């Protein structure tokens, strides 16, 4: 019996580093108990993290598969499980199971394309995985533009990596924005959807959006105004999930299960689904 692999039984991981990104976002580095990674994944996939007795929740894997040493999860504090995660210390064991979901088509549709990443707030978490994957396989992709915005400078996740590494990457253009004026910020101020329109991009790019639902909605409208087609735009969804394998039923939207048919969807696919997300 026990030799049958059961996806609902988690593996153990150990938290080897905790980085405080913003006042409410921390990034956790997770390793297998004997070092290395608990499992391999593709960018955009998710994993369930849990602390027995507290609960289990699904998080997107922030680190890139090109990172062979560990996995990272950028997690915003907003509920029961995340509260607990934010209060734990390095060396804590947690349970982890995954990877779940389809991930981004990095090795098919994205290949040799110019990519435009648009993220808001913690929405950078799943995109960071793709961005670093692209950096790791630089010759396989075209130009990269990144538009990233958040409420304030302090709320920009992974700020250090962005300004120290991403901006120096060849053919990388990083555009940062914050919602309101702030002392010590000389960059752009304004909401992401407007900033995207202001910047204006060539319509041959493939776009990847992630952020709050309202930001996705208006950014998508903005992109269409710029002349993009819906089948050029990818996004990733968040719904309540319990099993991760399309059985528990709660992430069901239309004939899709977001946990296994998603969470990454092309925007023209979303049009065929009931508007319930």
């Amino acid at each position, binding site marked *: *019996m*026990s030799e*049958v*692999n*059961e*996806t*609902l*039984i*988690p*593996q*153990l991981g150990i938290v080897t580093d905790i980085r405080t990104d913003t006042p409410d976002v921390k990034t956790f580095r997770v390793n297998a108990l004997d070092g290395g990674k608990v499992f391999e994944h593709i960018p955009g996939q998710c994993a369930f993290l849990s*602390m*027995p*007795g*507290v*609960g*289990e929740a699904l998080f997107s894997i922030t680190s890139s598969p090109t990172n062979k040493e560990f996995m990272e999860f950028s997690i915003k504090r*907003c*509920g*029961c499980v*995340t509260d607990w995660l934010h209060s734990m*210390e390095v*060396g*804590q*064991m*947690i*349970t982890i199971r995954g990877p779940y979901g389809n991930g981004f088509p990095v090795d098919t549709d994205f290949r040799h394309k110019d990519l435009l990443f648009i993220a808001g707030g913690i929405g950078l978490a799943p995109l960071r995985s793709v961005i670093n994957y692209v950096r790791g396989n630089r010759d396989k992709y075209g130009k990269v533009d990144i538009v990233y915005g958040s409420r304030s400078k302090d709320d920009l996740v992974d700020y250090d990596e962005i300004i120290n590494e991403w901006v120096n990457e060849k053919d990388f253009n990083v555009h940062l924005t914050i919602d309101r004026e702030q002392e010590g910020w000389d960059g752009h101020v304004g909401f992401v959807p407007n900033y995207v329109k202001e910047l204006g991009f060539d319509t041959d790019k493939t776009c990847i959006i992630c952020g709050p639902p309202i930001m996705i909605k208006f950014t998508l409208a903005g992109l269409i105004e710029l002349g993009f087609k819906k089948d050029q735009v990818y996004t990733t969804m*968040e*719904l*309540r999930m*319990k*099993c991760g*394998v*399309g*059985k*528990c*039923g*709660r*992430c*069901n939207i*239309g*004939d899709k299960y977001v946990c296994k048919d998603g969470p990454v969807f092309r925007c023209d696919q979303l049009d*065929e689904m*009931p508007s*319930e*997300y």
Partner: protein
Amino acid sequence: MKKMQAANLNDFFRAAAAAETVYLPVDSADGARFMKYEDGVTLSMACNTTRSAKDFFFPQVENLVDFKVDGKKIEVIDGREEVEDFVIFGVRACDLASFEILDRVYLNTPPVDSYYKNRREHGTVITLACGRPQETCFCKVFGIDAADPAGDVTCWMLGDDIYFRANTEKGEKLIAACGSLLTDVDEAPVENAKTAIRAMVDKLPIKDLKLDKISERHLLENFNSSVWKDLYESCIGCGTCTFVCPTCQCFDVREFKTNEGVKRFRCWDSCMYSDFTKMAAGNNRLSQLERFRQRFMHKLVYFPANNDGVYSCVGCGRCLKSCPISMNIVKVAKALGGEANE
């Protein structure tokens, strides 16, 4: 085809129960329900049980895994064990069809659910052809033949006799074990009985429910239909329909802190409950309208879209009998199906 006198039914149960646990429908305060066979327990003559038979393979509560937590250390305890062989006697055609629907979710769509598989492999299903269909029965709508269900063994109760037909190897074995009670017999009486049952089913009031306008092809049309607004308001958002339904398969994963550690278990969940899709970031089904719609859309549209057009309803009629406010899948299908059902 084998035959046995109905008077010997108890001997049959006793013989079967000698090797493995036997469950059969028994009359109780809540109508018929599946109970373990013991001396003195007699078979219910009711059309069907109040609760469905899905419990045998997908119990309401099931332990998944245990944990022990000690400081920063966690121990994962996989407590899965082979379940013992068991026999379910008296499963009706509709409930048997529901097992096939559950199989599609838990066995045929990867990854295989080992908890479900374990129970499924160890269960032997003896079906019983329907003798007294009720006004709430509409299995025919889904192409289910109440007169000749499959399963490991099929039984027909005709007057003083019970006829047995083994359909699988498992069934052959079970019949062989009770061999001394059974005699070989011709199929003719059973064929006549089947014709009679089918004739009876043809007289049932909702056998002609039309579902042509409810399908994957009409997904968005069905979803955006104005009937939901008219139907949902009486729904009180309880889980009765989901819990008596033989095909509802959604579950929740929860934890319970014992004095020793943590048990992680799964239990049935209902899309009718307000917290079904609630998460820290919000809820994508805020009102009962959306939740009500989800249940019926899933059964009649989404599930067939993923499963070769097979509806996730078997017409057992339990929700027709149990719903506190008598709103049910037939009323929904008639409203959604439009004029076809007038």
